[in-house]
């Protein structure tokens, strides 16, 4: 089934709040091998001007991929998850994700296109605090491989 081009331009309602924890930041930093104590030591983070420990630059994917799931799991979208590969990823940080942040994500489907027998879908997740402060823009392109 081809990807449904009608989804281009669709904007989903903001997701439920995800609260960033110091424990998840530590676990994620260890998993990617980031030894910067700014992820694990609140005193270091405060000495650099942050309110608490901050997340590594790619941590936002954890929240963004939960937002993307709204599209990928929607049967109407026609995305076969077993054929999905990650093509591109980009983050623009307005400020670092910080322990204690209560974040919602708003998913935008920016592009749905076909090329060389494959479908490509570009999504953009705007992460903001519950109070409406923009924190991060995460842009992802997935490739859905065509059938052989």
């Amino acid at each position, binding site marked *: 089934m081809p990807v449904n081009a009608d989804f281009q331009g669709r904007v989903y309602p903001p997701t439920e709040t995800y609260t960033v924890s110091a424990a*998840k930041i530590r*676990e*994620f930093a*260890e*998993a*990617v*091998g*980031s*030894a*910067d*104590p*700014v*992820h694990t*030591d609140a*005193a*270091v983070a405060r*000495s*650099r001007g*942050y309110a608490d420990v*901050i997340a*590594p*630059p*790619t941590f936002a*994917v*954890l929240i963004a*991929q*939960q937002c993307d799931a709204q599209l990928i799991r929607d049967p109407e979208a026609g995305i076969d998850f*077993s054929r999905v*590969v*990650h*093509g*591109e*990823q*980009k*983050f*623009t*940080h307005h400020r*670092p994700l910080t322990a204690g942040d209560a974040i919602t994500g708003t998913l935008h489907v920016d592009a749905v296109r076909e090329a060389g027998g494959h479908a490509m879908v570009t999504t953009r997740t705007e992460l903001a605090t519950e109070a409406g402060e923009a924190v991060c823009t995460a*842009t992802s392109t997935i490739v859905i491989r065509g059938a052989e």
Partner: protein
Amino acid sequence: MAADQSRTEPTSPAVRTFADVAVGDVLPPKTIHIDRATLVRYAGASLDRNPIHWDERFAKGVGLPDVIAHGMFTMGAAATVVTDWVGDAGRVVDYGVRFTKPVVVPYESGADLEVSGVVKAVDPETRRVTVELTATAAGEKVLGRALAVARLD
């Protein structure tokens, strides 16, 4: 309760300043060894539990040569070359990559991800520096157009 005198002050290397950076500067490279435990750890931390990243039988069943690393693991691990060099992970304001080849992670040998970086641009107006990263595994480039922008003082 008395203040805890035994607690040492956090020692943190100085954060790099804009004046320290010039186009062409080479960042200290890093070789990151990846094995199945690395990927299981990342799967748990990131909540990306796709079995192609830890279950060899499943990966081969969907036509992959073996277990492959999460693209986002590679992107996150490569970022540490920039954040170690800057001295503060919170300084990265923009970071984008293309995933050009999967990192195949065999059970016995694992894989070595080699990451290097070079300063491509500096902007005195915004005090932003742009680093281009090169990441290879088994001799092939696994990231394309990998650019990280850091805002410095």
